[in-house]
């Protein structure tokens, strides 16, 4: 039982971090419209 709790805790923290990435992507992502496949349009 404690094993399940700590594995779930680990997954939840990394899931929160992954969600933070999604949120920050919105903040940063707008300028990416200027580049396509890694190079400037």
């Amino acid at each position, binding site marked *: 039982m404690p094993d399940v709790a700590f594995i779930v805790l680990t997954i939840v923290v*990394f899931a929160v971090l992954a969600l933070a990435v999604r949120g920050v992507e919105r903040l940063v992502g707008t300028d990416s419209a200027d580049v396509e496949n890694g190079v400037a349009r």
Partner: protein
Amino acid sequence: MSTAAAGWLQAGLLMLALAVCYRPLGDYMAHIFTTDSPHRKHWRIERGIYRLIGVDADVDQKWSTYLRGVLAFSAVSVLFLYGFQRLQEHLLLSLGLPAVKADGAFNTAVSFVTNTNWQWYSGESTMGHLVQMAGFAVQNFASSAVGIVVVIALIRGFARSRTDRVGNFWVDLTRTCLRLLLPISLVFALVLLAGGVVDNFSSAHTVTTLAGRHQVVTGGPVASQEAIKELGTNGGGFYNANSAHPFENPNPVTNLVEVFLILVIGVALTRTFGRMVGDRRQGYAILAVMAIIWVASTAAISFFESGRHSAAALAAGGALEGKEVRFGIPGSSLFAASTTVTSTGAVNTAHDSLSPLGGGIAILNMMLGEIAPGGTGSGLYGILVLAVVTVFVAGLMVGRTPEYLNKKIRPREMKLASLYILTTPALVLIGTGLAIALQGERAAILNPGAHGLSEILYAFTSTANNNGSAFAGLSVNTVWYNSVTGVVMLLGRFLPIVWVLALAGSLATQRMVPAGAGTLPTHKPLFIGMLLGVVILVVALTYFPAQALGPLAEGLS
């Protein structure tokens, strides 16, 4: 030789060794991360690794893909290390030790993956050799490499323009381990071995001492782990006494070698930075700020530990409680300062026994964000974020255009920099506040008054900044502390990495802006002074009330 002369000699030799390595190591690291020739690009063994994990090594990634690689690799590492400890009793070389308890295994797995190496346990009586070698030592390499590759991605953000690609995480990680950390660790493992550090598969032996008493002596693969422990600014000791143990750090020479290893990559990375952005003077400016903080910190701890503030210190010629006589005050102060201005956390003295103000400096070093020169990679990306804040503040103060390395510092970059400098203080102060507020957790304090607060403050400052050293006198081996400090370590490591890689992506998409009459030169003494001011005013003052109630109150009472 007098104590003062020994201190000057050690500091001089250390600075000389770092100066000798600065250019070749910095240039070599720049070469590792900028090798683009198709024929020399990947080593054969590297190509094998890329094929094995299914990575297209010739394709660069966006910052978000790079970051997802960091997070996925680290999440899998935590789960693997957790399982490894929980299954210890069934593994080879377990020395008959039982499985590590669940909350302790979680805390330790997180601790090693986040480069913290906070240890609630005694290594020699809790962990078998295989867990130490195949679990912890592997993460000593990997977690250190993760810090380095993150700062390399940030540097590419400054150096590149009009692209959304900041590199390939898997390529950077593999190269860092194979081309940088492994070779240096191998050489210095042999150096430490020659200096007297043990390395064997011996289990515990009971021996009879000269006084006729019995003592349990445990051997193990120590030298091979000691080098990467310091080089990678990890700090997790094979033994509970860490680098105060004679098998881990036998004499003043090995002590100096270990301090050198703690600092060398962080120092040389400033050269790498200068090379990669095409202006070495930028690296020298950052190095100057780091050096000023390191020298001030070492001098302050040496001063406070040499003081004769009590009858015992007066009789001993300094505050020798908790210090190894092999190293004395100079070797202990040098180590204590270097381990806390980096994210190492290895110790050769009991930090709880430092004088109140000496201990306060150790806490302050961590509170500054461990930037002088900091953890491998994490120190440099920390100070680069503060450099971004500095040019923004300079722009507000004197009407300069906020630019850094030909990139505009826009509201978006400032939001990310602000999130970076707020994250760690929030974790430290909320964690400390919670521990003080909860009656059960407050009972973990073994010393009353201001020193008790310092113990909790040190614990959360150390875990949130991924340092790993500790004041003794706090019973942290509880489910609450193991769980909460585990989460603090995860958030303290990876939230700043989220902001830093997002900053790298945001900068990389910009076009280069030529320096104009309104651009603040960032390689001159004015900028160095301003950056120091930002470090003190923006970062250190955030913690001033907590410092005032803990170390300052104790030191001035």
